[in-house]
């Protein structure tokens, strides 16, 4: 059973990577960058977001550059997942690689209002709201595994450790 206990941040279409990770803050660390995440869209976003909150957006979320700080900034701020009508491809790959769950909504999310309580039901592939469930497109198992491991790097750590261990046991 999954209860909606986090808040929805509701955004529109075409949220771009310059809004998520502005170019002029790219030289610094993720902390400084995350403080400016989405300020072009909502100046209070970074200061008001709480860990576990869920971004619910429209079409083509994360369009623009390949900078993965766009996904990293959201993860740094504690965003639990991003649900969108569609994602820009590079952002989508980056998010999974960084362990940020991203889901394409198969149903209509337009009734959601900022601050509405929501939750992701990964096993049931749904966004749970107070009034019902919105279907999400299920992710292939190997991508769910990667997200569960915390992203590509921990996933590869496991793989390299697994391939190294037989040699160790042989010696």
């Amino acid at each position, binding site marked *: 059973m999954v209860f909606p206990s986090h808040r929805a941040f509701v955004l529109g279409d075409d949220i*771009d990577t310059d809004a998520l990770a502005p170019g002029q803050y*790219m*030289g610094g660390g993720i902390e400084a960058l995350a403080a400016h995440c989405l300020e072009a869209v909502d100046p209070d976003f970074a200061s008001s977001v709480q860990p576990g909150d869920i971004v619910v957006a429209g079409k083509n979320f994360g369009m623009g550059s*390949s900078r*993965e700080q766009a996904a990293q900034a959201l993860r740094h701020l504690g965003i639990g997942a991003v649900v969108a009508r*569609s994602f*820009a491809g590079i952002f989508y790959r*980056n998010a999974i690689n960084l362990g940020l769950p991203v889901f394409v909504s198969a149903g209509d999310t337009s009734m959601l209002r900022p601050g509405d309580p929501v939750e992701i039901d990964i096993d049931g592939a749904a966004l749970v709201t107070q009034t019902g469930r919105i279907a999400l497109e299920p992710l292939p198992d190997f991508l769910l595994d990667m997200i569960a491991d915390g992203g*590509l790097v921990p996933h*590869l750590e496991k793989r390299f450790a697994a391939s190294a261990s037989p040699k160790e046991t042989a010696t």
Partner: protein
Amino acid sequence: MPQSLAQKIIARASGRSHVAVGDVVTARVDLAMIHDSGGPRRVEPILKRLGVGLHDKDKVVLVSDHYVPGDTEEGAAILQLTRRWAAEKGVTFYDGEGICHVVLPERGHLKPGMFVVGGDSHSPTGGAFGAYMFGIGATEMAGVLATGEIWIKVPETIRIEWSGTLGPRLMAKDMLLAMCGRLGMDGGRYQAIEYAGDTVRGLGMQERMTLSNMAAELGAQAGLIAPDQTTMAWLAEHGATDLPDPAHWQPDIDAVPDELHRFDAETLVPQVAAPHSPANSAPIDAYEPTDIDVAYIGACTGAKYADLKAAAEIIRGRTLAKGVELLVAPSSKRDQDRAADEGIMKVLEDAGAKVLPNACGICAGYGSARLGEDVTCISTTARNFRGRMGAHSSKVYLGSPYTVAASALAGRIVDPRDIGA
């Protein structure tokens, strides 16, 4: 089963005889391109954490282009780290020679049939050479550098056919903006675009690169153009060796694209994209009169040799409008040198252009030339998102090098066909 060009390349890279759209496969990467911003400073900590080195240093090319010329403390430090890493790893490194998407092909690194990843969103540029090239982030790049492979979902093919001859003062950039206007920034759905038709075959390689480059703005993963004699001649001139037979890297004649869009070059007029999206493209007469403060000719998209030449054709013997600043950041040193040899750079400089380093510069939001508050700019670059090139209040219009040069002379957005020959 008939195969698209994308399918043929992915099948070869994944060691299969054929692949079907939607298959998820692991492919061997023929070449990984990285730059100073998303490259060493981001991938090395991950390689260290994994405790591994490069899977194959001969399949990595590094280019410094984002923090060049390193005129800030932060930029200088990043370049320093980049140079040390290049020396330590022994990878091919082009330092301050220009923007990665232009430097790679001009040094003969891309060939038809290759499966290539780049640590930059404009990596689809390589598709102009018949290579399946796409952009990935730094973490994924670290994975590629460590393992030599990457997963990919075999894309659908969206064929975009152009027919007819482009009129005077029209370029690939106008074609692309027209496509963005009609199809939108998500029209590519992260699938493979294949540009085709007699208009495309009639374009030179640098113009084809503009089409493939902005497949990114159409939201595609790749922007392929099947190789022909133009491709092969250009590659041979630029030092590419062991060239494949281009006949091997064509879509099967009976391969049916998943989507087909047709465009007519004969009726195309110069296109301009209004702030703050390339998808806000419309015929240029929708914009007059819009006053401009800055005209920017730069980036991988819009400052190659062919772009500089087009701008000079308009500017030759004329002066800039009072108060307008013309900034020119040639895409590569080689293109700038060629333009200088042919007197093109002198035409631009005599008119008052300020020449900036061969780097991404303000197109990527870097450097000291960033646009100030309330500045209106017309630019040959690919993206005009709010705040990308400078202050939040700045406005960027996108146009071809012809249009940007003509607008610099007039001080407002004007049709380059109205400037005499």
